């Protein structure tokens, strides 16, 4: 499954004889980035050759689609290219994953949309479904990235389209980012598992969260991480019915925020769990100390702590 790069030849290839690689996972070329590269090529030429393989008297791109597009735009007749031998379909795809994911940051959706094809080819190659580690080894993608991709793959098409639209914008102008959808999906998956009756229609819940995010009712992505905490109310012995009610209200069109839902349902329980956890940790540490180990400042602080503990114990 390897390509012998040492046998590649560096040639000046006619730009008109080159075709884009249909397996290039990259679907989005931001205009501003293309313009920048175009200007560089106009002024300094193509400094790094593209990679192609020959097929039926023409050339198919392996690497360098943006450089090639810019050359076409600039009416350049030739482009320096490393002409390699034709790879197998799996090698072709994996080559591009490796070339791009190691060298430049692709949009996650770009990777996500091609991942099923990689899995299909790998399944054929291995005779079984590849596991996450194998996919990671072949593609050069971290396992966390593969998991994030899977969340995007499972989105209904309409949401994938809206991410695609968003990705055409400069990063600074993107609102409904891939990260937003990933955080939202994680939250909804947890809610669906813990309290399925709260999300009878996942798309409706998505639409509400999207609207709330767009209108700043949800102020930032981190707030979405509080939703699974509400759904796991039972794990902190909070009232499940109250948590359900808060989530139901959250998934309706209103100005009810995640922070309010959290406050109304599980805030105290998590706070209590936090105190218990810290108290355990503190008790363990104090048990390891002898009276000679502590100075006046610590003695004074421990005195204040004893007073608070007594106050609460006597209540």
């Amino acid at each position, binding site marked *: 499954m390897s390509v012998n790069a040492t046998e590649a030849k560096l040639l000046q290839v006619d730009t008109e004889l080159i075709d884009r690689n249909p397996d290039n996972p990259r679907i989005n*070329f931001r205009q501003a980035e293309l*313009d920048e590269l175009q*200007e560089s090529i*106009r002024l300094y030429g193509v400094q790094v050759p593209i990679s192609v393989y020959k097929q039926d008297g023409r050339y198919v791109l392996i690497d360098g689609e943006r450089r090639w*597009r810019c050359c*076409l*735009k*600039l*009416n350049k007749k030739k482009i320096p290219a490393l002409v390699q031998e034709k790879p197998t379909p799996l090698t072709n795809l994996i080559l591009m994953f490796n070339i791009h994911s190691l060298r430049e940051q692709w949009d996650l959706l770009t990777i996500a949309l091609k991942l099923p094809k990689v899995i299909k080819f790998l399944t054929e190659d291995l005779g079984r479904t590849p596991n996450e580690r194998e996919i990671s080894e072949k593609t050069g993608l971290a396992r966390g990235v593969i998991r994030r991709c899977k969340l995007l793959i499972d989105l209904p098409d309409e949401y994938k389209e809206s991410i695609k639209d968003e990705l055409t914008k400069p990063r600074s102008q993107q609102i409904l980012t891939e990260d937003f959808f990933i955080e939202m999906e994680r939250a909804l998956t947890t809610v669906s598992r813990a309290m399925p009756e709260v999300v009878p229609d996942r798309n409706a819940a998505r639409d509400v969260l999207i609207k709330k995010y767009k209108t700043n009712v949800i102020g930032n992505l981190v707030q979405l991480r509080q939703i699974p905490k509400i759904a796991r109310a039972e794990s902190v012995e909070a009232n499940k019915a109250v948590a359900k009610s808060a989530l139901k209200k959250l998934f309706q069109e209103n100005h009810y925020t995640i922070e309010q839902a959290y406050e109304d349902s599980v805030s105290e329980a998590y706070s209590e769990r936090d105190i218990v956890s810290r108290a355990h940790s503190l008790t363990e540490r104090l048990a390891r100390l002898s009276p000679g180990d502590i100075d006046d400042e610590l003695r004074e602080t421990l005195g204040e702590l004893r007073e608070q503990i007594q106050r609460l114990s006597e209540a």
Partner: protein
Amino acid sequence: MEFKSLAPHLHSTAEAAATFFKQKYGWTGFKAEQEITEDIQLRPTLQTTTRDHETICIEVSESPYSGTLDEAVIACKNESLPVKLIVVIPKTGVPQTGDFQKLLGRAKRNSVGIVEVDNSGNGTILSEALSLSLSGVRKVNPKEFPPKYRQALAEAESTFHSNPAKGCAVLYDEIENLSRKVAAKTQAMNLWSTKATYNFEKDNWAVIMKDMVRTFPTSKSPAPALTAVMIAGILAVSAHRNEVGHKPKSRAQLVKRNRELRTRFESAIDQFRDLVNAAKPLKV
């Protein structure tokens, strides 16, 4: 249409642009990403040729101007190519920032048109495109002329960009009017060596000028800058008065005609300025 270099999210804008220009100007037969000439470093998104042999280049982009366009504009001007370059940007409905306004100004200064188009093919023209073969013409400096001529000059200049022959004609009219007045005044002042009986407002202009070259100026003239050579130059202008209406039959003829008209326009401006200055002592 198949686009190779245009970013995919702009394909619909390109299609909508073709619809807009067909409806607005009747331009059809657009081809995608073709070269203008072998040497110009730009393949515009869309390109077509009008019945008047003018090349229309539509560049679809999110930005109204870029360095790549600069080079293409200069090349078209230098080669006197009859090209109109229009940048089409997608209509976003979002107010444009200061940078956008700066780029818009740059496009205007370079005679590049800017049109905003939505996906239904509805467009708003933000800036009109001028033929690049003509836009390289030297700009008229109004301060070199007395106020009474400035409006006519501005009209001639703006007409020149849309219809160069007519622009020249407007300028020739001004030269003719002033030279007729100069002829009448100098004749009345007995500065010609012979007595002429012309109707200076109506008789053949070329005939009057020929006669004036032959019999004027005399050493008594209060306008010494008004020389026979200058009047002969004005006489030369009259030779082009009847050529301006002919339509070029091919692109090559259009290139040739535009080159000639550009030169004539610039030289007529110089002649007019010299005539105005030379005739000042006559107070016509």
